[in-house]
């Protein structure tokens, strides 16, 4: 189990109350994770470094959300295996966790619905920290360093202040961003793949952090798209300079050919694959017609 199973109240408070200039961010990565690789894990690290280096953000959690089995991609292992491997992969991470909700639904869900779900969960947790007049009063009493009359405490803990604090803690304050590679960004251009309204919601309401490798040009892709350009400021592009193209497809290929994948995916995941005899048969060989957008996530 990842040690980052839950955003604790402490982290929340710190992020929300103490760091007024910095926007707290949660990064959500959706994908097959069939299996999870070091490249997926790197994506989180790179995004976190980038966001925090800007001075504008603090990344408080990373969430891996494996896709539902009903996505029906060839060779997609059952969700229980994919979840187990992801959990093994993040057990040494103190900020990345795995969420099974998407895979547990009755059907496949569009990415935007998964994002809405996780945003709602964040808001629920925030509500627990919402200010009320009695809470504010208690807090003031506890933190007061100067002596003050009882009556002035009551003055302070009034409606206005409560409102001000709550507006800081309001629904939009913690941002949930979609973490992805440039293949997903570019897939927005594939006709019929995404609903226009969904793209707008993902880039407009939530925001994207796109990790792409040196030599690709996601900025150009954003430029060439009207809707993406409109929300340019919400699309953060990070270059991965240390080329690390460990796609799940290549891992599955290597495993089929009984080649070593050590140092490309975490050791516990390798052990799990061996123990359960996964990725050995030829289901995956019938590769779908070279879809540029077959994401390896």
């Amino acid at each position, binding site marked *: 189990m990842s040690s980052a199973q839950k955003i604790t109240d402490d982290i929340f408070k710190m992020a929300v109350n103490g760091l007024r200039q910095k926007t707290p961010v949660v990064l959500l990565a959706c994908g097959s994770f069939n299996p999870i690789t*070091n*490249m997926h*894990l*790197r994506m989180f*690290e*790179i995004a*976190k*470094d980038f966001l925090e280096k800007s001075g504008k953000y603090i990344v408080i959690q990373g969430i891996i959300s494996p896709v539902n089995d009903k996505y029906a991609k060839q060779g997609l292992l059952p969700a229980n295996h994919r979840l187990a491997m992801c959990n093994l992969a993040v057990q*040494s*991470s103190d900020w990345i966790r795995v969420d099974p909700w998407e895979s547990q639904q009755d059907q496949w869900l569009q990415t935007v619905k998964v994002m809405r779900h996780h945003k709602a969960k964040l808001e629920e947790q925030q509500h627990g920290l919402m200010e009320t007049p009695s809470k504010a009063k208690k807090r003031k009493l506890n933190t007061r360093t100067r002596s003050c009359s009882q009556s002035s405490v009551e003055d302070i803990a009034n409606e206005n202040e409560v409102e001000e604090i709550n507006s800081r803690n309001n629904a939009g304050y913690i941002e949930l961003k979609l973490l992805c590679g440039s293949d997903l960004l570019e897939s927005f251009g594939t006709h019929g793949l995404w609903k226009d309204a969904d793209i707008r919601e993902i880039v407009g309401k939530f925001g994207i952090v796109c990790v792409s490798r040196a030599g690709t040009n996601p900025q150009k892709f954003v430029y060439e798209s009207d809707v993406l350009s409109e929300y340019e400021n919400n699309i953060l592009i990070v270059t991965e*300079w*240390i*080329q*690390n*193209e*460990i*796609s799940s497809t*290549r*891992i599955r290929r*290597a495993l089929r050919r009984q*080649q*070593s994948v*050590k*140092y*490309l995916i975490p*050791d516990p995941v390798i052990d799990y694959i061996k123990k359960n005899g996964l990725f050995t048969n030829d289901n995956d060989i019938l590769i779908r017609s070279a879809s540029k957008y077959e994401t390896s996530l």
Partner: protein
Amino acid sequence: MAAPGRVVLLACGCFNPITNMHLRLFELARDHLERTGLFKVVEGIISPAHDKYGKKGLVPSTDRVAMAQLALSTSDWVRVDSWESEQKGWLETAVVARHLKRQVQNKYGSVVDAKTDGPSRKRRKTRHNANNRDEPVGSSTQVASGDVQLKLLCGADLLESFAVPNLWSDEHIKELVSEYGLVVISRAGSNPEKFIYESDVLSKYKSNIHLVTEWIQNEISATKIRRSLKRKESVRYLVPDAVINYIKEHQLYQPDTETS
């Protein structure tokens, strides 16, 4: 059909620090060699360079050896050898190879060498004796099954460094490719065959140079790792966790070291 010849892979370098890419080289080389059916890879050796190699930002060999050991703690066939780093001064690769060849010879029995007239008398009685096919005395080119070869494992950059004037002596290049052999890992899109073609000595011993393509691009050079560490960026999943912890604990690769 002869049983596969046993091979030990030797990688020399700074390992400053060791990365997942270095570790992958061994995995790729072993898979490739064994797939030919001609070889069985029995051991891998990492030999970190001596401090007097003099490269800027080279952390002490005790640290580099320690980090390599930590990195290899989950490997059951690759180990670190600190002999090179413990000598009085920097040594050429060929000298290191000679020493380790003797060591491997003692451990597994005689090492096949193009110059010998047959299996050495020093061979210990080990399991492989039973597999030994009869080699006519005086035959110097066959690999007797069960005998062990030492091969140099490297990236294409080392192969191409043979062309740098005055960097290697011609005798050493010849020794390394003829007596040992190379296993060269290069990335998709590069062209090591062309490089071999353009060199007379390499072309002559082409059969001793095994070219392996790394299709899963994984360019985690130590230089990039040092750069990231200097910039306080994460290197998780590029370098083993145990090595990251060691670097933190010993405060290596801090901003005030090498500038590059």
